[in-house]
């Protein structure tokens, strides 16, 4: 249902004059779509409401800039407000007497233990002397899990038979004796409504005096994110948020909810199961992901890392000049495929992301192969000037590639559409709300 906010808004505003002031009616019309987008992204119902109030206040009466149309103007304001709500990325606070204690808390299975190991590795690489503390005595084999991870990242793990509060207390004392600079306490998962276990967290906090109490939350969390964050914050006092499993296709609206109710900064993102899969967060990227505009910057980064730069440069120039041929298209396809499974890539493209537009990976792969086969069956001339393709040529190509004339026609049509679109893009100054290609 929800495809691409920009294009939806575009239709909404199609009949509107290109310039002038945004009227209340225009804005309300646009914000209806934004509301749906945010709810689809799991931003909490009430948080969406207050967010839209802020956007509305800014947008009504705003001058529509000459460079933008009204839809783009609204998207721009929404995006700016979203970025502001997400806030600046927080840095780990490592001030105060050593060892500084970092405590990880959260629901069951949110990724605390994995994140403990990731942070330990990160800090160790920065020259800190780190100790991990196994204070989850609840989940079977949780201590062994941390020990295994500790070994993998070469950080010692403190574990002993005692209550979690006692374990944490003893660990800090041992860390101090051993000259550790950072002690990371991994705690058991718990529900924010479980009073006994929440009291245990409070006791650990009082005993170890942490400089950081970080809530580790799953990026897939739904409307409950508000109550979870609020529950932990009110009872234990959070200093930061960590969002895990952001490597999936969840839009991550929970981040907005949690930021709004706690006001504490987002400090890290968990982006995979391996111990180096941790990132500092980028509000712009997360905002566009939540809005469903796709993680464009992510795609660019990835592309830059993988694509042969010169190739990319050439292609980009050709793209803009409209001299892009089917041959270039094939080269690009091959480069793109180097970047990983197609579904993952497509997920990062605006208009293709979002829960309703699940990419059928297999179908996409097949489509890819079919396209490749068709272009391979073309002569050089056909690839460079598809206008020469007549009926008999198409039949030959179809037979050669094991496809149908219909498939060949489809490809040529899509390619032409793309050429047209790219030409238009090249004439514009860039798309507002979206990062510019450099």
């Amino acid at each position, binding site marked *: 249902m929800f495809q691409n906010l920009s294009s939806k808004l575009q239709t909404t505003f199609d009949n509107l004059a290109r310039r002038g002031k945004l009227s209340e009616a225009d804005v309300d019309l646009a914000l209806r779509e934004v509301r*749906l987008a945010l*709810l*689809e992204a*799991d931003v*909490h*119902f*009430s*948080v969406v*409401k*207050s967010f839209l109030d802020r956007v509305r206040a800014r947008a009504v009466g705003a001058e529509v800039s000459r460079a933008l149309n009204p839809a783009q103007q609204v998207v721009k304001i929404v995006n700016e407000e979203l970025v502001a709500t997400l806030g600046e990325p927080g840095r780990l606070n490592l001030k105060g007497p050593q060892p500084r204690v970092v405590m990880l808390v959260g*629901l*069951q*299975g*949110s*990724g605390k233990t994995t994140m403990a190991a990731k942070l330990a590795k990160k800090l160790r690489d920065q020259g800190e002397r780190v100790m991990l503390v196994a204070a989850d005595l*609840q*989940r*079977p*084999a*949780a201590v*062994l*899990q*941390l*020990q*295994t991870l500790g070994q993998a990242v070469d950080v010692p793990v403190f574990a002993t038979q005692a209550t979690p509060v006692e374990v944490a207390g003893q660990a800090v004392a041992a860390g101090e004796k051993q000259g550790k600079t950072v002690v990371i306490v991994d705690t058991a998962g718990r*529900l924010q*409504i479980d009073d006994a276990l929440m009291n245990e967290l409070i006791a650990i906090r009082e005993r170890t005096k942490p400089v950081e109490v970080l809530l580790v939350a*799953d990026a*897939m*969390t*739904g*409307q*409950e*994110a*508000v*109550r*979870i964050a*609020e529950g932990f914050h009110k009872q234990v006092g959070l200093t930061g948020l960590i969002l895990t*499993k952001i*490597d*999936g*296709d*969840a*839009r991550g*609206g*929970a981040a907005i909810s949690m930021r*709004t*109710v*706690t*006001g504490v900064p987002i400090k890290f993102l968990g982006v995979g*199961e391996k111990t180096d899969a941790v990132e500092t967060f980028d509000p712009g990227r997360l905002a566009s992901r939540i809005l469903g505009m796709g993680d464009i910057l992510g795609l660019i980064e990835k592309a830059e890392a993988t694509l042969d730069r010169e190739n990319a440069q050439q292609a980009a120039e050709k793209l803009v000049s409209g001299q892009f041929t089917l041959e270039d298209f094939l080269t690009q396809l091959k480069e793109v495929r180097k970047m*990983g*499974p197609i*579904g*993952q890539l497509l*997920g990062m493209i605006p208009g293709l992301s979002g*829960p309703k537009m*699940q990419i*059928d*990976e297999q179908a996409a792969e097949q489509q890819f192969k079919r396209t490749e086969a068709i272009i391979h069956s073309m002569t050089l001339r056909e690839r460079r000037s598809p206008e020469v393709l007549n009926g008999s040529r198409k039949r030959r190509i179809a037979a050669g590639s094991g496809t149908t004339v219909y498939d060949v026609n489809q490809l040529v049509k899509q390619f032409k559409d793309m050429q047209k679109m790219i030409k238009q893009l090249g004439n514009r100054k860039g798309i507002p709300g979206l990062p510019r290609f450099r």
Partner: protein
Amino acid sequence: MFAKGIRESLERTRNQVFGRIITFLGQNDLTQETFDELEAMLIQADLGTNLADDLVAGLEVRAEREGIVRADGLRKALRQELRRRLGDPPPLDLSARPAVILLVGVNGSGKTTTAAKLARYLLDQRRSVMFAAGDTFRAAAVEQLQIWGQRLNVPVIAGQPNADPGAVAHDAVMAAKNRDSHVLIVDTAGRLQTKYNLMEELKKVRGVIAKAQPGAPHETLLVLDATTGQNALSQAKAFKDAVHLTGVVLAKLDGSAKGGMAFAIGSELGVPIRYVGTGERVEDFAAFVPDRFIEGLLE
């Protein structure tokens, strides 16, 4: 600055919403606001905007057609509409011997704990059970299942760390056959549904099981965290496409989340919820009872 103001407004909205829902469930006259509040409540229970909108639109039509003017009349209609979307979950198919149950899902959703809970549930029915430790990836995942195995006295078939999960599954089916076990529960590593290679691996595991015993796996259950929002549908869809789900286990329903995604999964994908997990202990497990679930949602 804004945090406090919003917290207050949240508090207010919540009180309002739930205050009005109570009225809504009571005897007041229907107003447009009733429907707005109803939609708000459904969205906050993670039903998703599409389904919430569908339900509310359907109720508006019914209210007009059936002449419902009081909120308590609407309550019954809502219950019916919700109930209709959940269907009747069938019991586990345990006719084969061994009956193979494959547990799949994203990371940390509760698969291994559900394996233990299911085992205990089946042991209570006097069936013999075995485990296959198919998570060969996550640190100490095998040991976690082995601890459950020891506690429940259920044998665990495991491979070396980083062993091929397909090979473990194969060995486990063979072992379950040899020992004439009633049920084999295959635990698997968590995987996000967007990871192509990991989903391929899961297909392979399923294929290996099917080859080792025709007709198996007899049940393939997606273990879903009840706190999950709209992504749940994407999960269910991807796992369904990859390994033909026969049902969902809704874990962690003891939290404050309502698990409203179950409706979309039931009505859009036709995958029924079969069991619920309500805590970390093995006994915190029950067959899914639609009426009770709806009760929890509306309370």
